[in-house]
């Protein structure tokens, strides 16, 4: 199925104007780079053939991974590099590729951090389709190609903070979430958006476990204005390369100001809703996990202190423990979303 290029939907239909204006400010920062792209080759920055050559981070050489499908190749040859300034970039030390791809919480593939890499060999992302449902004018089941290919891929370097009090810095490749969601033309009733992960007993040993208490499929949700925030990102790759299965191939959310479990992996359904959806962890342990799950050093989780975090990788003799920042350091971009809310209640 092919999507016709939809007419531009007015941001005011989805997002309050003030937030939309914020977004413009952001984009201003990277406009110089975009201008360079538009002039095509005249900018010294763009002198090289493929823009991919200017990516801030590349997967280690010698890594041979087959592309999930032929059309991916073209998209990945043409990636907008990350800008030089926050918030779409941070100069903190990147967590190495091997660690980002070998230390994962993806319980569909097992409980241990190494399980997702170990157990995702059978996982197949082609063909992949995504169901778009709920309060949208263009519902339906779309091929991944139809969802991804109209968009320019861009690189973003974000901090990722897990509720388990460890963190990483990861160079993602993807598309602003708002740009994807708008194409399906959410109507004025859409106040929340819910995402679902694939459940496939054949290729996901974790969902076969009789002792797992998650009610699959794994579900996550965002308030519409959160989803439309320019920081919210739909990743299809990392380190300039396709997303490995264990990191949520072929398409996953990245919401850098929230704990990692909000950044749902391997998405097969996007559902626009009037009411706040129930996310899996909140359903499982409501006294421990809320809907918002904003990174907050002042509100501790019953199992993990949240005022510090261990930045990975660490070694046995360097804990690499750093202070956790409010909204994971993205307060300037997102604090206004929660004005007047008691964040110790809405954790």
């Amino acid at each position, binding site marked *: 199925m092919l999507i016709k290029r939809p007419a531009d939907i007015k941001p005011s239909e989805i997002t309050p104007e003030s937030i939309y204006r914020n977004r413009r400010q952001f984009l201003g920062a990277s406009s110089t780079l975009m201008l360079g792209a538009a002039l095509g080759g005249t900018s010294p920055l763009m002198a090289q053939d493929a823009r991919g050559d200017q990516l801030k981070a590349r997967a280690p050489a010698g890594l041979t991974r087959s592309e999930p499908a032929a059309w991916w190749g073209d998209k990945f040859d043409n990636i907008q590099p990350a800008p030089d300034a926050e918030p779409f970039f941070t100069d903190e030390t990147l*967590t*190495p590729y091997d*660690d980002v791809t*070998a*230390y994962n919480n993806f*319980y569909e593939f097992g*409980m241990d*951090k*190494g399980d997702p890499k170990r157990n995702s060999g059978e996982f197949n992302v082609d063909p992949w389709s995504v169901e778009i449902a709920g309060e949208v004018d263009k519902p339906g089941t779309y091929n991944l190609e139809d969802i991804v290919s109209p968009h320019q891929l861009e690189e973003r370097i974000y901090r990722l903070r897990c509720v388990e009090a*460890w963190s990483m810095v990861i160079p993602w490749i993807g598309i602003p979430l708002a740009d994807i969601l708008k194409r399906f033309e959410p109507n004025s009733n859409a106040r929340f958006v819910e995402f679902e992960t694939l459940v496939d007993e054949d290729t996901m040993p*974790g969902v076969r*476990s*009789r*002792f*797992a*208490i*998650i009610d699959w499929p794994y579900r996550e949700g965002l308030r519409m204005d959160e989803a439309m925030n320019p920081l919210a990102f739909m990743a299809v790759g990392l380190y300039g390369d396709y997303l490995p299965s264990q990191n949520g191939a072929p398409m996953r959310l990245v919401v850098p100001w929230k704990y990692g479990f909000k950044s749902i992996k391997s998405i097969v359904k996007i559902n626009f809703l009037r009411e706040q959806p129930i996310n899996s962890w909140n359903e*499982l342990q409501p006294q421990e996990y809320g809907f918002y799950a904003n990174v907050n050093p002042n509100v*501790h989780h*019953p*199992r*993990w*202190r949240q005022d510090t975090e*261990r930045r*990975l*990788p*660490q*070694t*046995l*003799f360097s*804990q690499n*423990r750093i202070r956790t920042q409010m909204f994971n350091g993205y307060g300037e971009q997102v604090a206004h979303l929660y004005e007047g809310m008691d964040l110790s209640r809405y954790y």
Partner: protein
Amino acid sequence: MTGRSLLKPAIFILALVPFGYVLWRVFIAQNLGPDPAQELSIETGEWSIRYLLLALAMTPLRNLTGQIDFVRNRRMIGLFALFYASVHFLAWAVFVWGFQVASLGAEIIERPYITIGFGAYVILVALGVTSPKVMVRKLGKNWKRLHRLVYVAGVLATIHLLWIQRSDYVEVVLYGGILAALLVYRALHSLNKRRLSRAKAS
């Protein structure tokens, strides 16, 4: 040397194999991953529970088989549970927290799963300290009473494990199931014994 006198050193060496494996992972394979402190804590914690359950199984095994060697090696196996629990505790305190005493104290007080795990550890230390023959003699009747706390340690350790798990309880079910079976056996056994002695008395 007889077979029997070889048994003790053999068990001793066998019980150290997991520790050797951990050292190998730390220093030679260096495959603990990006979060080695956590990995080390998890691995040694699991070995501690396994040895604790094994020590608890010794008396029932003696009763069932009549083989006295089970009880002869019970103390050593229990001490290995303490040994792995110590490595577990130290790995957490030193490698996860850099031995910042204030943070450790706060964690032990504020995180219920750590409070309970620490409780289990304190019991194991108390049992370890009172395990030499001298202490058995000194404590007399109280020794047995004190050492019954090993069951409390087992229950606390299992709850500790339960509260760390985020969503899959396969290990808790396994270890908890073994512990429950051992407790049921003990209860039935002592009930039976009491009935027997009453029958004899009448």
